[in-house]
């Protein structure tokens, strides 16, 4: 077990399996009348959010509370540099208050790696720039495993802005380690250079991706990318890459549809499809808490076994 969770690249299969197995145990605990365990009592965890986040922050916070940890939230709009204090100083200050673990969300790729050089506490990456978002990929995998039974051989297509997506990168690494096949699909301008190094299928046509896949992970498309000239309009994106019921019916397939949220209804995914029988979007949110409990527990150094 590695000390930190910085990403899923290079994380061995046994470790991912252990995290998922632990997450399923925690999910069972979460369904009890008192969904709380004393596992991390006395541990202090700081949630450092340098980028706006609602669901990831709440999910981590809830996971920490369910584990009986003490939690502190540090939110900063904009980067630490713009505030005049360096990330190193910020974190050294927080560490001086005796923190055991740090959960960090930052707009700069590699910021969690930088933190590991500044402090001794275990660092959990809650999303760094366009690099990785490992707990999101773990909860996506947990949701798929729950629905299908196994990840081995499963075909998962990630659709949308792959270039800027940390969710895509973590899913690619994690799913491939677990024996799944991965495809990416989106406008060529939103596929990063040399993406074929990942050994993924690349589709520029959503219907091809739907025909290929067992599950779709649909990413949020951000309007600001249009302004930087990467695609012409949301209208054109919706028409050519939007996931719709008509497209699924044309392919005559029962696909699993995932979305890391927040959803642009009517853009990357048709409004009612997000709430349909295909969708596991709310399961993802529920599993998010269980997966983050598993990660926090396994990285805490606490050896007490779960009941």
């Amino acid at each position, binding site marked *: 077990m590695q000390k930190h969770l910085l990403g899923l*690249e290079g994380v061995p299969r046994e470790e991912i399996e252990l995290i998922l197995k632990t997450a399923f145990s925690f999910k069972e605990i979460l369904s009890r009348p008192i969904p709380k365990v004393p596992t991390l009592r006395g541990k202090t965890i700081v949630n450092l959010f340098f980028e706006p986040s609602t669901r990831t922050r709440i999910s981590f916070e809830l996971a920490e509370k369910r584990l009986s940890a003490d939690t502190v939230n540090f939110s900063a709009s904009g*980067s630490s*540099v713009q505030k005049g204090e*360096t*990330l*190193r100083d910020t974190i050294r200050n927080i560490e001086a208050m005796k923190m055991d673990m740090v959960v960090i969300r*930052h*707009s*700069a*790729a*590699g*910021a969690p*790696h*930088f933190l590991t050089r500044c402090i001794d506490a275990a660092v959990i990456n809650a999303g*760094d*720039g*366009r*690099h*990785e978002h490992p707990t999101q990929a773990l909860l996506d995998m947990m949701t798929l495993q729950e629905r299908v039974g196994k990840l081995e051989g499963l075909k998962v297509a990630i659709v949308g802005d792959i270039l800027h997506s*940390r969710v895509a*990168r973590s899913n690619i690494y994690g799913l491939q380690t677990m024996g799944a096949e991965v495809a990416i699909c989106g406008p060529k301008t939103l596929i*990063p*250079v*040399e*993406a074929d*190094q990942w050994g993924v299928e690349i589709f520029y046509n959503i219907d091809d991706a739907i025909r290929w896949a067992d599950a779709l992970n649909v990413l949020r498309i951000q309007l600001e990318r249009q302004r930087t000239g990467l695609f012409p309009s949301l209208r054109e994106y919706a028409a050519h890459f939007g996931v719709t019921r008509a497209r699924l019916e044309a392919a005559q397939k029962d696909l699993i549809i995932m979305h890391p949220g927040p959803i642009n209804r009517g853009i990357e995914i048709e409004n009612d499809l997000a709430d349909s029988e295909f969708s596991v979007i709310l399961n993802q949110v529920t599993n998010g808490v269980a997966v983050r409990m598993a990660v926090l527990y396994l990285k805490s150094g606490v050896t007490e076994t779960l009941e």
Partner: protein
Amino acid sequence: MQTIKYQKPERLLIKNANYLDPAEGGPRQVDVLIENGTIVRVEHAIDGVDGAETIDGTGKLLTPGWLDMHVHFREPGREDEETVKSGCAAATAGGFTGACPMPNTEPAADTRGIIEYMIAEAKGTPVDVYPIAAATKGRKGRELSEMADLIEGGAVAFSDDGVAIATAEMARRAMEYASMFDVPIIEHCEEPSMTEGGAMNESAVSTRLGLPGMPGVAEDIIVARDILLTEITGARLHIAHISTARSVELVRQAKQRGLPVTCEVTPHHFTLTDEAVASYDANLKMNPPLRTQNDVDAIIEGLADGTIDVIATDHAPHSPEEKDVEFQAAPFGIIGLETALGLIMTQLVEPGHLRLEEALHKITLAPRNILRLPHPKLAVGQVANLTLFDPKHEWTVEASRFYSKSRNTPFLGWTLRGRVHAVINKGFLWVSPDV
């Protein structure tokens, strides 16, 4: 950081040195007697000289003093990171008796006063400072700088380094105007619309690391633009810190067509690839960024076949508080003066990519030819401008041993071979306490 001490010996005798001048070929064993900075005797054996400070050159190589035609001395503006004096100390320790500070100071070196100031600040050091002035006022790419006046003040070339001259039109005019004085335009080749927000080379590695990329083609486009402009302007063009295989090929073709195009490469661009960025250590962030193995191979080939004329360090000091941050937030650049020899020996000469005299050519004759500066000669009556070094001396790069004010380098902890023993110029002598 170490404090440097220069001596000013009245009589200095160098014994048993192997003198290697890339302009002459083959080393010869000589003794050299220097009085008040001027060479007075060059003989096979000089003995019985009274009261002379003596340096034993046994096992070392004596060469004409070296010139680094691309450094940043940060003065005026960022004297906390480097000054002309501390930069000259770093140059001395690196074996360089000449250095060309780039004009991206604050304010930019676009007026004669700044040029004269830089030169004056180097007076008490063994280093000749030959400033490169801004090609356009404020390096903004809108109006030409006063080139004639700047040349009279001591500028030897023009560049908007840090950025390319902003538009093709302004690049054309700068080249036309500079060509009247037979001084080169030195171009930092980067098409800014393709690199905005970029932090590293755009490649398989940037895709993996999720860092915004700076594609190599952004360099190639400006290299191609400016090569085409030499054809209509007749100006001499020098490409700074070339880093891509395609740009090397463009320069090779330009030379084959007889165009007055030259180029330089930094030690880090022939040593490292973008794979090194995986640590997210900001000491691996520079502009141009570290490229791929394919580019490094092409650079080494270009060095060997003469396409790449010069090795220059792009010595770019930055304070620890600026560099010890998230990769994307850090400024570009690393220091290079004090590790240049070690990297040249360890990465180029020892593996057999370049013969020692070829490597020395790229830090002595070649840059001086481009800048029309005289090549130091080992002859009676000449100013003694010499570097004495041990090509085999093995050492470990340590921050505390630097003479630069800054320590931003990815080579800390590296074991290199080749270290400077002594530097002589302008009547000054510096002897390394570390060799």
